[in-house]
Structure formats: C-alpha cells, structure tokens
C-alpha cells in the first residue's frame, strides 16, 4: 500500500519510517494516516492555538483534555467543550447532527462529569433553497432526536444563514457538565498492569476513517462516503452515561476516554501516551457487529456510544456488574504495560506495533504559507453617503426582523427539550441561558455566538468581536465570563489567503480573551469547509460560560415594565460594516470597528454592577440588528411598547442599525434612575424614552404596534 493512499504526506511517511526504523505495514499506515489527519493531529493549527490564553484563576483543566474545566467554587467544577460535526452533517444531516451531539456529551462524560446542558450552533445556506431546507430539517431533527432522548436539555444556541453554507452547513455542538473537583477522571493516570476495557456498543464498520473524511474538502466523490458516517443511538448513550457515572461514583475506574474520531486507536493511544505507559491490545476480544473486520477497521471504526476504561484488575468484576445492570457490552481487551510500545494483536499475529507517543503527538506540523488577501481594502471601501436613508422606516424594521438570521428561532428550539433535569432558569430564545445548580445559590450563564460576516471583512477585528459579544451579553446578565470554548470552522488552510484569515481571526480572538481575562479552556478546529461552489465564511464559534453569584445578581432581558426609563449606554457612532442591516440588503462591506480593550473592560464592570445593584428591570447588549433590533426584541418579549426620541446628530440609520463596540439597552425603573446614572457616570449614556403603550415608536423613524412586530418576527 502506498502511503498516499493512507492520506499521509511524504514528510509524514518519512518521519514514521525514521522513528520505526522500518517500513510500516498496511495496518500501521492506515492507522497513522487517520491519526495524522488534520482532524486528529491539528497539524495546521497547533502553533496558532498556542496564541490563546488558557490559564486563569478559575481554570482547573485547560486544552488538551477531553474538555476544559472551570472552578465554580466550593469544590464543584463545570466541564465544557464545543465540537464541530460539519462534514458528516453535510452528507447525512440527521445522523451527522445526532452523533455530533452524542460525541460532545461523551467528551464531558469522559471527565466523570454529568452532562447538564447542550447548546447548538447551526449555520445554514440560503433559507429559500430546497437543499438548505432539507439539510436544516435533518440537522434540527438530529440535534433534537439525540438530545431529547438522552435527557440533556438544549438550552440555547445560534442559528444563522448565509449562501456560503449552501453546500457545507455547520453543526457545532456544545455541552457542559458538572463534576466535584475531587472526582475528575484523568487520561494521565493509567499505570502498567491495568486492564483496558471497552464499554458500550459493539464495534462495526460505521464511520471508518471519518476523521480523515473530515480533513478534506467536500466533493461529489466523497459525498458518497456514507460508510464514513456514524449512526447514533441515544438510548445506548443514556445507558452509557448512567453506567460510567455509577462506576466513577464507586471509584472503579482509573482512567476513561470517549471513542470519537478514530475510535479505539485514538482513545487508547492517547491514554497510553499521556500516562506514559505502553499497551497490548487483543482485537479478537472486541465485540463486533460486522463479520470479517480487518484489524485496521476495528482500530479506526467510529461506532458510537463506546467508552474506553482503564481499570485496576481488582475492580474488574464490579465494573462488569455495573455494565450488566445497564445491559451494556463490556469487554476487557488489553492491558497496560511498562514502556511506550503500543501493540495490536489479532488472530495470534502482531497486526501493528508503534510507539504510543508517535501516534497522537508527533505529527510534523505544517507551516502553511500565509498571505494577506489583495482584495481586503476593497471590501472596506464603503461610503456611507452611498447608502440612502430608508424611505419607509416601518418597512425597513419589519424586513430586518424577518431576516432569517435575526428572526425568531422558536420553530427550531421548541423541537428541543430545554427543561429536562430541572435546572433551566432561562432557556433558549434569550441572549443568555442560565442554569441553576441544585443546592447552591450561584447560577451558570452561557451563550453560543459567532459573527462570520465581520470576520470575513476584517478577521482580526471580527475575531475580537466574536469574543467580545458574548462577554458583553454575559456581563449585562450579571455574569463575569470565566472561560470559553471555541470551534474554529474555516475552509482549506492550503490557500495562503485563507490561512491568513484563520491566523488573524485567532489573533483577534486571543487579544480579546486576554483583555477580558477569559481563557480558552477547550475547543476544536474544523478545516476544509468548502465545496466546489466555494468556501464558507470564516466562522469561529465561541461558547462562553460565566458565573452569577445568585439569582439576585442576575438581570433578565425582555422584561420591560410600564413607566421604565430606557437608556442606551455606549458610543453613538457604531458602524454599518458587516451589520445585519446591510446584510439584509445583500451588502457585505465596510470595515468593522476596532476592539478597544479599555472601553470593553469598563463596560463589563459597570454592567456587572448594574445587575448586582438591581439598577434595571431589563438589559440587553446590542448585537445583530443594533439598537433597533434590541428595542424591538425587548418590546416584543415584554409585550409592551415604548416612545423614544433621539436627539443625537449621528445619522439615524447608523445609530439605530449600526453594530460593534460595547453598548447596551437598559430599562430602568423611575426610582432607580439616579443610581443607574451614577453607575454609568463617565461612560456614554443617553436617555432614550419611556416604556408604555402598544406601539414601539422612534421619533422620526418607525412606529409599529407590538403585534405587528411579533407577527413579522415570528412568521417572516
């Protein structure tokens, strides 16, 4: 077999030969081809990811483990991670999405944490296209079909539409779990002489080399790669969750690893390498569901709902008992040994023998050439004077609210169980989702967000905005961002301009993370998101998690009350660059505003004080659609109107529809106005008007009833 058939590059093949001191056999070549694929090895991005800050007071576990963990205080941790499942979802939307949800839940489980909530990031093509509709329907059903059955609520997410996702939709799944800090399961704790155990489903031919499939562009050829798609069984996963948590509670396991990309080989070699042990695996002992499987197929199968356990032999019997209770297959199929040698035995022969540390860790990095796109400045050329003021403001606002990326997502999120486990304080459809922690005062706040359009116009500034937006959302809700997880969804890094965009996005995100002291604790990278029709927009997606000390320090959105005074805090000169307003008119142009760390940090501190001092009834950070969209959403959710006059020289469309920079809309009860003004003294803050009546009216612009707004927002 040629190394190129296994997907290896020449330098990689030479490295393997050099380390082994011999020719790798076919099984070894195939294993290394998948393990050194982009998806598993991060060979294109490892150096970039180092730019992210990943330390902080609250960080218990940073990148490199199954998920990151932050300290919630009093011995409890929150484990969370987001992961993409884009390629599978493009080919088999239901199963691709379902197994994406299942995979991220197992990542959380692998740390010993109970998964308590999910969020999903969905990026679809043009809403009117039949292909988008069928993909979107399959993906949404897949997310719900798996999450609902497995009993993990889907409490929030992000859905956006752009033609660049026509052929290559994105499905990013986020999961968070809770774990007592002294019960964290590590992948670094295996010792020689322990049993290697496979718990869960039988191993079949499904999903073989899925990781390699995810590491090339989509084409007509590989859309036929259905064997690369995994099939999900949420029932099996539910049993797996309960069984693993029971085993961990009884302290029966030394180490645990989920079997995701590259299945057995990836999970077992990772434990071996991180723990500094070798392994001997007997593939004849693995329960199979297909006949005549080759050892490389067994090694690389991505059959779902399986976990790898490392068990001290004295507990093996008890592990089997728990597995039997939950009616799960459980097979000891190997042992840990001294040294670094990772050996697969099959039918009495040595099928593969590799150094454990070679498999996952030593792939030669690829320094892709980077080039600033020549047309970047051209995208920024944009004269606001060429944009006429709306002729009919009412119509303009209504069509903005009907824009699928901004419109109500109720039809999607009502298909997800958002309440099971009884922790959901604020569920989907709000800027920030909140979970209570049973038996404690503190709440977990979280949000999943992205702004691909600003990233495409100016990747550095867009990257910073991608991080700043959720941090502002959380602060307004009363939560200080404690950490984030990211999915970097980008096209091929082999095009120098595309690599430059990736690089700049990461730099911008890293700058904002540093300024906010919000470390990146986990994440993944999905490259090659392109089809013959073109590349996706650069789409870094971030899941940000914060902590609210108690419900008294939380501020809700969409809770205006009659007579409240409305305030806009933040600069009055936002930008229309990459704004939803221009996008809904088909214009992607302009240069987004730069990231001002000092102003952003100032905003966060004041917003947190506003929430904890109960200085407002309702608050919403401005994002897509700007002030106008925020006014409309607050009004619709509160079921009450407002009268507003704007005595500011800024062009009204810029003030109302512009985006970027740290701004928020607050509804303040009359009695709290003096306090509110003190809290925002020294930060731009203007009084907009009063809450009341059935109409949302902005003097000199729009005037619509709440029901007119609602009807358009909900039904398009």
């Amino acid at each position, binding site marked *: 077999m040629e190394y190129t058939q296994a997907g290896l590059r020449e330098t990689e093949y030479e490295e393997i030969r050099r380390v082994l001191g011999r020719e790798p056999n076919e099984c070894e070549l195939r294993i290394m081809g998948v393990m050194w694929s982009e998806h598993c090895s991060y060979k294109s991005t490892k150096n970039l990811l180092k730019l992210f800050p990943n330390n902080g007071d609250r960080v218990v576990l940073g990148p490199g483990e199954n998920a990151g963990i932050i300290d919630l205080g009093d011995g409890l941790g929150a484990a969370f991670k987001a992961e993409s499942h884009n390629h599978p979802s493009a080919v088999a939307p239901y199963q691709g999405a379902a197994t994406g949800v299942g995979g991220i839940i197992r990542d959380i489980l692998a740390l010993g944490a109970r998964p308590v909530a999910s969020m999903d990031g969905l990026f679809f093509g043009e809403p009117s296209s039949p292909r988008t509709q069928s993909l979107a329907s399959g993906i949404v059903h897949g997310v719900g079909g798996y999450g609902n*059955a*497995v009993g993990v609520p889907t409490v929030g997410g992000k859905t956006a539409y752009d033609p660049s996702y026509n052929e290559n939709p994105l499905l990013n799944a986020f999961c968070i779990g809770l774990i007592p800090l002294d019960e964290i399961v590590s992948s670094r704790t295996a010792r020689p002489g322990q049993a290697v155990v496979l718990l869960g489903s039988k191993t079949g031919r499904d999903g073989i080399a899925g990781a390699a499939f995810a590491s090339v562009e989509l084409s007509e050829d590989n859309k036929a790669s259905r064997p690369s798609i995994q099939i999900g069984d949420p029932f099996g996963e539910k049993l797996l969750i309960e069984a693993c948590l029971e085993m961990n509670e009884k302290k029966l396991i030394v180490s645990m690893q989920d079997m995701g990309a590259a299945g057995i080989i990836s999970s077992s070699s990772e434990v071996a390498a991180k723990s500094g042990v070798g392994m001997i695996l007997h593939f004849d002992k693995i329960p199979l569901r297909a006949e005549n499987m080759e050892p490389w197929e067994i090694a690389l199968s991505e059959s779902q709902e399986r976990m790898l356990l490392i068990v001290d032999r004295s507990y093996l019997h008890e592990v089997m008992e728990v597995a039997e209770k939950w009616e799960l297959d459980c097979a000891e199929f190997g042992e840990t040994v001294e040294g670094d040698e990772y050996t697969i035995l099959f039918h009495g022969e040595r099928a593969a023998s590799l150094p454990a540390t070679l498999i996952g860790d030593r792939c030669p990095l690829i320094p892709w050439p980077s080039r600033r796109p020549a047309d970047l400045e051209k995208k920024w050329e944009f004269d606001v004077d060429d944009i006429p003021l709306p002729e009919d403001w009412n119509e303009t606002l209504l069509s903005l609210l009907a824009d699928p990326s901004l419109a109500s997502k109720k039809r999607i999120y009502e298909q997800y*169980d958002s*309440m*099971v486990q009884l*922790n*959901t304080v604020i569920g989907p459809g709000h800027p920030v989702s909140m979970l209570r922690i049973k038996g404690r005062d503190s709440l977990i706040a979280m949000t999943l967000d992205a702004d691909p359009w600003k990233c495409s116009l100016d990747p550095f500034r867009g990257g910073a905005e991608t991080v700043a937006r959720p941090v502002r959302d959380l602060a307004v809700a009363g939560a200080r961002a404690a950490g984030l997880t990211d999915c970097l969804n980008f096209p091929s890094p082999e095009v120098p301009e595309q690599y430059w965009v990736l690089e700049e996005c990461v730099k911008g995100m890293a700058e904002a993370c540093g300024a906010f002291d919000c470390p990146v604790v986990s994440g993944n990278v999905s490259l090659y998101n392109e089809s013959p029709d073109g590349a996706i927009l650069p789409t870094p997606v971030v899941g940000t998690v914060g902590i609210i000390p108690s419900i008294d320090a939380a501020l809700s959105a969409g809770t205006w009350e009659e007579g409240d005074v409305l305030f806009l805090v933040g600069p009055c000169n936002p930008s229309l660059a990459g704004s939803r307003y221009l996008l809904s008119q088909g214009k992607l142009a302009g240069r987004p505003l730069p990231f001002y760390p000092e102003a952003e940090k100032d905003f966060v501190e004041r917003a947190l004080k506003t929430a904890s001092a109960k200085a407002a009834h309702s608050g919403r950070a401005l994002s897509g659609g700007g002030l106008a969209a925020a006014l409309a959403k607050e009004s619709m959710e509160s079921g009450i109107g407002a009268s507003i006059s704007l005595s500011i020289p800024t062009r009204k469309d810029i003030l109302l529809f512009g985006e970027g920079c740290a701004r928020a809309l607050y509804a303040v009860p009359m009695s709290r106005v003096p306090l509110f003004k003190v809290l925002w003294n020294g930060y731009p803050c203007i009084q907009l008007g009063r809450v009341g009546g059935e109409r949302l009216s902005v003097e000199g612009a729009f005037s619509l009833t709440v029901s007119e707004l609602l009807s358009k927002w909900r039904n398009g």
Partner: protein
Amino acid sequence: MNTAVIVFPGSNCDQDVMHAVAGSLGTKVRAVWHKETTLPEDTDFVILPGGFSFGDYLRCGAMAARSPIMKAVAEHGRRGGLLLGICNGFQILTESRLLPGALLPNRTLNFVCRPCFLRVESVSTPFTSLFSKGQVVQFPIAHGDGLYTLPEEELKALEDRGGVVFRYSDSDGLTGDNANPNGSANNIAGIVNERGNILGLMPHPERASEALTGGEDGRVFWQSILESFTKGGR
C-alpha cells in the same frame, strides 16, 4: 406517603420527578429499577416517569409495559393504589391497558417542548382535589408522541364518565384548536381510570414545581395527592 418512581432504561425524568415530589412534599421517594418484580412493601404511590424507555425505538412505552416490574405496578393499581404516568409514563399506561386509548405522533410530526396552559376538568380525583374546576394551570410539555386518541364511542364514554382530568387550553381556559399542541382528541392532556386512582398525563407537573424553574402550579398537584392520601389512606 411513600412514593416509588420506576426507572426504566432510557427514563430521563426519574430524577426530576423524585426531586419535585421530595421538594414539594418532603415525603419519602425511592427509585425502583424496572427489573425488580415487587414494589417496596410500604409503597403508597407509584410514578412512571417521562423519558424514552428502551429508546422508544418500538411504539413508545411498548417495551416498558412488558418490563418485570409492571406486573406489580398493575397489581398496585388494581388494588386501588395511586398510580401516575407522566409523558412516557402515560404511554406506558396505555400500552399496559391500564388506561384506555393510545398516544400517536404529534400532528406536526415534530417534538414540541414549551410551557402549556391546561384547564382542570375534574377535581374529584385524588390528583386534583386542591385545584378548582375550570382552573387554568401551566405545566410544560415535551414530547413527540402526545396525540391522544381512542375510538369515537370510547371517547364519548370517557367524556361521559368525567374521565378527562386536564385539557389543553389558552390562558383564558378556552380549548380551541389553536390551544392544542399535538392534535389530541378533544384537547385531552390527561385522563383517569374509572376508579379514579390511575392518572396519565402528557404535561410535566414536575417541571412546574419551583418558582425558579417553570412555576409552582405543579406543587398544588403534588399537594393534592398527599392530601387525598392522608384523608383517604389509599
């Protein structure tokens, strides 16, 4: 009142319902694994919780209805013991023929999860004694197969004997089609057997048992059960 919550593989509201009963009433609640063949001896109240028992890969609830514990559960019901099935538990009760009718896929064919208004139709059951007739309460729904149906004559018989306990309505208690989330016959959300000791409902009272997470209407439901039990000693 000692409560037993039956746990099937794939149940996912078992912990929730235990939390809600214990939190609302402070009474003893135990989980009972489906492979048991007897209930704990002092069991007064049995709950079949929501979820996806056995993955619901066959008809919802069909596998669970044949679990070992179900003989003892049916016996408990036949003796007049309090028995409640919520969501998947309701499906298990109809599959066990402990309640009439069947639950089919929602008419939209989509799973639906949201808060829902219900009109209390009967307060003469031990589950609703503290509500007032016609009262509108809010319990969330979360199901893919909640369309309640049964043959026309049986439906009429059910209505005539006052077996409908909860009906989907709007906030004013009107039970029009627009207030029907799944296409159920006559907006039926919950029914009781003739003897009145077995209730099945699709909405989740356990998700409305705390102000912070979904409201408190469910507490009245649990309190009704406790009060009826204390008075009647069922």
